[in-house]
């Protein structure tokens, strides 16, 4: 699959899993890699970039094991970005499924 395309999808998924609940960077990587064949080492840079862009905010949270953890949570503009992503994705999927589903497309 096209790398750029895959990065875009991973970006959307990172936004979604952090929206579902605030998570540490390891938790984000772990959650995604358990469900899909994702290139783990690309997740952390994406997480950092999205934070720099203001889509996430971080706070330190006490941990049961070891040092306190940095936890990412989604911001207002992060949610807007995710909504836009999901809308775009739904339209894209609909078109793809239309094409794959029959011959009546142009």
């Amino acid at each position, binding site marked *: 699959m096209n790398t750029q395309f895959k990065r875009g999808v991973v970006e959307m998924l990172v936004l979604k899993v952090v929206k579902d609940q605030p998570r540490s960077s*390891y938790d984000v990587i*772990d959650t995604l890699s358990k469900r899909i064949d994702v*290139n*783990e*080492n690309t997740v952390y*840079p994406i997480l950092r970039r999205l934070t720099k862009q203001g889509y996430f905010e971080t706070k330190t949270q006490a941990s049961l094991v*070891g040092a306190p953890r940095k936890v990412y949570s989604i911001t207002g503009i992060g949610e807007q970005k995710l909504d836009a992503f999901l809308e775009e994705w739904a339209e894209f999927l609909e078109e793809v499924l239309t094409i794959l589903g029959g011959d009546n497309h142009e």
Partner: protein
Amino acid sequence: MNDYLQNLETMLDRFIMHSDEKHDIMEDYKAMIEEAKASGLTDDEVIEKLGSVDAIYQAMKPEYRLKKKIANSEKWIALSPFIALIIFFFVGFQYEAWHPGWMAFLLIPLTAIIVEGINHDSEFKLTALMPFLSVIAFVLLGIYTGAWHPAWLVFLSIPMMGIIESSKEKRDSGPYIGTTVFLSIIVFFLVGYFTGVYTPTWVILLTPILFDLFFFNGKKNHYIVGSSLLVSMGLYSYLGLYVTSWPIALLAFMVFIVVGLITGHVTIVINTNHRYGVLLKISFAISLVLFLLLGYLYDAYQLTWLFVLLTPMFSIVLTETRRRWTALSPFVAIITFMLIGFFLDGWAYAWLVFLLIPMVAIIEGD
């Protein structure tokens, strides 16, 4: 895991990043490793989960700029003004060549373009270099040979290089035909300059059509039309030189037109639905009459053909509302170029009017 973290830190040093950010990333990885190990993963499994240092480097590359390469580049760019100044003073004091010694300052943009072009593997680095190289070639040719005209032709290397570099990945013939247009202009002016003959050598300007028909299409009827154009060109030259006047010799191109009509290469479109169709036909008729009449009366066909440009200009004025001046600018530039060249013998600087085209496009752009 210490080796892993150490390698990670060394790898991060290759990027331009604030020490706080580097520290932050290192802390994040330490926390991720701790969390991964707490979940029961072995060292190897942790590395597999987080990615090897090399894989992380590859993943981070799009997000950060590389330090070493940029630092070296910036050194050269930063040094170039001083080098230019030294050359300028040396050439000026030693050889009293302040002019064209000033061209040493062109080293500054040249260095920046070359260095950045190499760093970013720019597809258009030669196109970006051409304006500066053209200025150098133009000034040197002008000063040392006095031939400002046709030295200005070197500026045509700019669009040519642009076409060549933009067509590297493409396989269609369009860009190559584009370069033949510029080549034909160069050859036409060079032949004219060295022989003083512009008629019938203007037929050189038709060679892009021949290139297209003979080398980029490969269909049988293209060869037929191409041959008919060759015959017309030859016949035109023969008739003009030995039989009749040049305007009448133009009838030789009827061979090309008739063959083109038969093969469908030449089509006559009469758009009766066009809102200004009648007006445009009248303007075309008037411009044709002016071309032939004034050309005949003053023997100035080399200039009166400009009247033919009035019809497309008129059409633009009537129909183009959004970017009218941008569309008109090539015509205005050609007319101004020819008028300055012929009446003021100012070929050397007349080419500058072609800069009007991008300037108008920028001003009128969104």
